[in-house]
């Protein structure tokens, strides 16, 4: 198989010299009689072996041992740390999130990488595109985390993500001028379908008062004038005033128009009869309105719900429900380039004859992709996928940096919990070691995968 060699070659070779295949090395080993004595090998290996022993082998053994002791390390407690790990609420959340991460993130990233690799295959400026998408790999997770913390800010005024969705939303349905305006509880107004209406019906030729509060002086548009009582209209007209019933600095009579109180311009007032809107008017700068052309009689005066449409504030990306998907989004941003480049290399290695043969047989493009490209690519996809899984299992920085304090608990993952428990204030190296051992156990399948792949390719 041409392709099975692909990923191994990718991960194995540094590049320039002609790839003579790994078999060569084995051959050299067998004919090594010419070579130097084996004690010399030890000299070459010694520094590395010392490091590997001290930083990998000993820690693995010690962690297993330490995980059987209590927080202070003075009392042997058997497997209690492991029981604790699976019963403790906070570790449980970490465990659950890790499962979500491992299931979702590698798939999403691999698919994105596949799409990008396919799309760029025939584009002239694909190098530039690949550099752009690959660039996040070069910067720290800390910096990426800071970058996305900014993107995910709640306030659409400062968070890019919400700025984009609120802009879209606002074009579809714009928000009102005074969304927070509302009547006092004791005012003669009742809530009606998102807006408000006067509790008592009003007759034509009457002038009504519609007092609202909750509007700050600097929210008022420039054209606003001091509120005025409306003149009663003729027989087919209902008039009134919508105004801010609040006197700056206190005082003033509730429900009455006081000297310094301002009209609310641009409010949509409706006359409602038998559930039907029969007349509509907008308030003027002094808050007065005239509902004209009505039949004589009584009507309900209503401020339409549109007057109070709250501005759409976007999604709470950093809230407890969306935090993990949000961080996975940032993870995609960082890792998509990695998947893309590996997969692109794999694509370039697919023998054209195989594709041609399928096409000659009358397969559609989709069939070629599904039946030929993907199977031939599957070893590469597998390598990408497994690599991502290993990194995802150990995910730490991004979660630590992006999740604000209030949702750290909801965003928790095993590696973070391990740090938190043993160093970040928890001070329980016993439990911490148990978590570390558990993490190690989780990567053992990957270790086996790795060793078997290596042996197969060097057989």
């Amino acid at each position, binding site marked *: 198989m041409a392709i099975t060699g692909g990923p191994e070659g990718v991960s194995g070779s540094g590049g320039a010299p002609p790839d003579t295949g790994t078999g060569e090395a084995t051959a050299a080993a067998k004919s090594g009689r010419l070579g130097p004595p084996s004690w010399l090998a030890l000299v070459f290996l010694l520094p590395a072996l010392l490091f590997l022993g001290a930083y990998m082998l000993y820690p693995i053994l010690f962690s297993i041992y330490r995980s059987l002791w209590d927080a*202070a390390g003075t009392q042997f407690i058997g497997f209690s740390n492991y029981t604790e790990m699976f019963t*403790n609420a906070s570790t449980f959340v970490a465990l659950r999130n890790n499962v979500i991460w491992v299931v979702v993130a590698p798939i999403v990233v691999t698919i994105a990488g596949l799409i990008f690799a396919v799309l760029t295959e025939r584009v002239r400026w694909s190098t530039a595109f690949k550099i752009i998408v690959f660039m996040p790999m070069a910067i720290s997770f800390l910096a990426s985390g800071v970058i996305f913390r900014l993107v995910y800010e709640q306030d659409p005024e400062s968070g890019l993500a919400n700025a984009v969705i609120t802009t879209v939303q606002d074009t579809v349905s714009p928000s009102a001028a005074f969304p927070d305006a509302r009547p006092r509880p004791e005012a003669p107004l009742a809530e009606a379908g998102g807006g408000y209406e006067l509790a008592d019906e009003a007759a034509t030729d009457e002038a009504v008062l519609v007092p609202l509060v909750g509007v700050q002086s600097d929210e008022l548009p420039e054209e606003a004038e001091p509120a005025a009582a409306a003149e009663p209209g003729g027989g087919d007209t209902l008039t009134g005033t919508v105004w801010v019933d609040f006197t700056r600095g206190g005082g003033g009579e509730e429900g009455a128009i006081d000297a310094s109180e301002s009209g609310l311009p641009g409010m949509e007032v409706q006359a409602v009869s038998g559930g039907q809107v029969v007349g509509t008017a907008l308030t003027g700068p002094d808050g007065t309105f005239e509902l004209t052309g009505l039949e004589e009689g009584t009507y309900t005066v209503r401020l339409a719900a549109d007057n109070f449409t709250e501005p759409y504030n976007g999604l709470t990306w950093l*809230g407890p429900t969306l935090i993990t998907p949000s961080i996975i989004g940032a993870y995609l941003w960082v890792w998509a380039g990695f998947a893309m480049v590996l997969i692109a290399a794999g694509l370039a290695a697919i023998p054209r004859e195989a594709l041609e043969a399928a096409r000659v047989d009358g397969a559609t493009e989709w069939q070629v992709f599904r039946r030929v490209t993907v199977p031939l690519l599957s070893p590469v996809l597998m390598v990408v996928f497994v690599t991502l899984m290993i990194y995802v299992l150990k995910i730490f920085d991004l979660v630590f940096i992006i999740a604000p304090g209030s949702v750290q608990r909801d965003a928790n993952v095993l590696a973070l919990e391990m740090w938190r428990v043993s160093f*970040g204030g928890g001070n329980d190296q016993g439990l911490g070691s148990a978590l570390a051992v558990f993490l190690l156990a989780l990567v053992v399948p990957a270790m086996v995968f790795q060793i078997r792949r290596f042996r197969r390719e060097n057989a």
Partner: protein
Amino acid sequence: MPEHTWRARGTVAVAAVGALLAATACSPGSGPGGGGGDGDLSGVELKVAAKWTGVEQENFEEVLAAFEQETGASVAYESTGEDTGAYLGPKLEANEPPDVAILPQPGLVQEYADQDALVPLEGDAAAALEENYTDYWKELGSVDGEAYGILLKAAHKSIIWYRPDAFDEAGVEEPETWDDLTGETAATLSDAGITPFSMCGASGWTLTDWFENVYLSEAGPEKYDQLVAHEIPWTDDSVVQSLEVLAEVWGEEDLMAGGNDGAVQTDFPTCVTDVYGQDDAAMVFEADFVAASAEEAGATVGEDALAFPFPAVGEAQPVVVGGDIAVGMTENEGVQELLAFLASPEAQTTWAGLGGYLSANSGVSADAYADEFTQQLAQTILDAGDDVRYDLSDQVPSQFGATEGKGMWSILQDFLRDPADPEATAEDLEAAASES
């Protein structure tokens, strides 16, 4: 209540619990607590770790310099960063703790004492504690009757800061009771279109401070102590009641800048900037140290940044105090001498003169603090007498009371996000408290 408007002059004003103790417990001629002495420590090198940075660090180093001069020892200061537990954990694991650490919570004193990581106060240091501190403060630094720590620096946590121009515009006054605060002050501000509160929900400790003030005022000091000791469960009616009281503010989206979501995502001191820089809200609740952030945001404390005492929910206005506790972590030469020095009125008087400091030492007289603001703060503490309490969340195990993403912090953040079910929240608190 103009007499409650604490006006401070230009500089960052901070408070003085000391004044209280100076008046109630000052023993005549309480001299140096045995300041260490006669230059007999030359050549001794000590390491002190605390969370302070910037000006706070400089002032503390000045105090340390006095010790160096007096004894000939040299003292190196190291900042622990925000999370003292995270700093000390690995140091202890590596068996390299600082000689003296300033712990932000008595809860940590208990934890480290249990791990045998602390050295009890002895000799001069023990005597200085005995001489200069009242029983309540002594017990705070003790575990099982053994004295380990000295309350070195205090913070007054029962005040609400506000923007006077917003109050003027709405025509409201400083409230004295909780009902005035919610029914009158906040409601009128809201009618005027001004958002009453800016919340600092992303910093969990500010929420525990809210709860403590309401609880202390409503349930009283006795129950407060019982809750600290976990002698009554968190599912107790009094807890549920206090949560319900909190929900009168936390449950009203219109009363908080940015609504509930905004409230829980705003950190300290951004919430202060929202009041004094952005004019987004009229009030922000936190301790005396808000002054520094308010000044940074461009306000002048005493003119356009004022504060009133946390209003009474029950019979009396609560007085909650927080603070940092100095402990010895090694048996090296000079450690006890340094602790004795830090506990002495001299050292703390020097510090009080530098500003940004509040002492709990009975030997520090009120005039050590230059400004009126601190003296008035101290007066509220005086009035509260034996009912002053130390920050609850800092007395319970830190896993429950003072850890990001855990225990009280995160449960109260959840409650701020959605305060619909105080009983469920009380149960969560009880579960978390039992676990730690």
